[in-house]
């Protein structure tokens, strides 16, 4: 935008041309530089007779509206040079720097805003993931607890059944041993009874009768059995 030199320097060219035209077209010393100054002067001054280039201090009468074409032309030249120099060395770079800065600020703000939004989204995502992980951990713990509980119960029941089986076997063995002992006891007591009876009856019973009696007694004993059921009595 600043490269369009015409716009910036147009006014100066116009002014210069106007002033030059006025200069050439009239009395250089007597005519006011800008065209409208004449009217202003005529209205405002009593004498209505402008003096060119008056430095009226010495003459006693001071005309504040005195036209000074040299000052006017000089102003144009100074202003023109100033505008050219500043345009080249100051306004262009400043304008560009200001715009660059505005753009960089704008983009920095936009980036910061984006980064903030992104960070918020990431945080939210992170939070969700944490919640999921916690759920999973809870599930895993629950399952482990359940498995441990079942394993414990299985072990417990197995141990119980083992113990019961052992007890049963022991009971059975004990009763078998008892039966055997009772049978032996019967056998021995029969022998003992026979021996005792024999000694008692030795004199009254013959040998044949003796043997027959023993056989009868042992058959009866066998029919009763080791548990003593049935009846001998």
């Amino acid at each position, binding site marked *: *935008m*600043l490269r*369009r030199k*015409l*716009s*910036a320097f*147009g*006014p*100066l*060219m*116009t*002014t210069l041309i*106007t*002033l030059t035209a006025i200069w050439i077209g009239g009395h250089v010393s007597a005519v*006011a*530089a*800008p065209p*409208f*100054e004449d*009217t*202003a002067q005529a209205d405002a001054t009593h004498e209505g007779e402008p003096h060119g*280039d008056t*430095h*009226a*201090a010495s003459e006693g009468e*001071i005309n*504040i*509206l*005195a*036209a*000074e*074409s*040299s*000052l*006017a032309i*000089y*102003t*144009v030249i*100074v*202003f023109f*040079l*100033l*505008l050219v*120099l*500043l*345009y080249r*060395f*100051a*306004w*262009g*770079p*400043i*304008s*560009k*720097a*200001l715009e660059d*800065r505005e753009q*960089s600020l704008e983009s920095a703000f936009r980036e910061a805003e984006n980064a903030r939004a992104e960070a918020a989204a990431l945080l939210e995502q992170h939070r969700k993931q944490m919640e999921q992980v916690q759920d999973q951990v809870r599930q895993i713990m629950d399952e482990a607890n359940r498995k441990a509980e079942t394993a414990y119960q299985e072990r417990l029941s197995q141990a119980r059944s083992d113990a019961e089986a052992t007890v049963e076997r022991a009971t059975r063995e004990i009763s078998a041993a008892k039966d055997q002992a009772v049978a032996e006891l019967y056998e021995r007591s029969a022998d003992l009874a026979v021996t005792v009876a024999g000694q008692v009856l030795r004199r009254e019973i013959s040998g044949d009768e003796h043997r027959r009696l023993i056989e009868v007694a042992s058959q009866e004993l066998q029919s009763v059995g080791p548990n003593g059921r049935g009846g001998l009595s």
Partner: protein
Amino acid sequence: MADEHNPLDHVIDHPTLEIPFLGELDLPVLFGIQVTRFMVMEAVAALLMLAIFIPLARHAARQKVTRGRLLNVFEAILVFIRDKVARPAIGHHHADQFLPYLWTVFFFVLICNLLGMIPGGASATGNINVTATLALMTLGAVVVAGVKEMGPAGFLKNLVPHMDVPWIMKPFLWPLMFVIEVAGLLIRHVVLSVRLFANMLAGHIVLAVILGFTLTVSEAALYIKGPVIAASVGGVVLLSLLELFVAFLQAYIFTFLSALFIGAAVHSH
């Protein structure tokens, strides 16, 4: 000395340069043209602007952030003129084209105004020749802006606002309005120059008159001249503060009105 004092003497151009505590320095005649005090002041203003804004531009181009109170002051004013004066008055696109002119004119007027506030200085803007030239440049900017935007015929046509009258009256009214509007265009710029000139001139005349009281009473008895001098010096101090404000205000007004006139030229009514 007291009798000869004339307040206007302080506001007109002189072929001499006043140097505080040293006296008057006669200015030379160059190429048949007498160098005057205002010419020197304008040159000082121009050199000051170059000395301020070229380093500012270098600094701004080099660094992303402007550091330093002085540089920031000027940069803030530049941005203010761009964002609060030029762009609202002219419109974004056209504003940037005329921004160099507005920046230059603002600071040139401002520094010329302020130079009148320092000892030995003078306000070149208190001279109608200077302000008229500046106003003429604004007129040139207006013409260039209008012609560039709408062409020569379009610019002249655009001067006349739209009239909501029966078609039969238009041929009579339009030329009348055209003459009035052209006169208005010129008068606007005359007033632009006179406003700045009159403000600066009046301010300095008032200061000179009040200070002149001290000269008037300089030979009176002490009990008279003591209070008078105290009052006039105090008044001058207060009015100088006002004048300082006016210096900024008038520079702003000149720039703002220039921007408004340019803006009116580039937009159709």
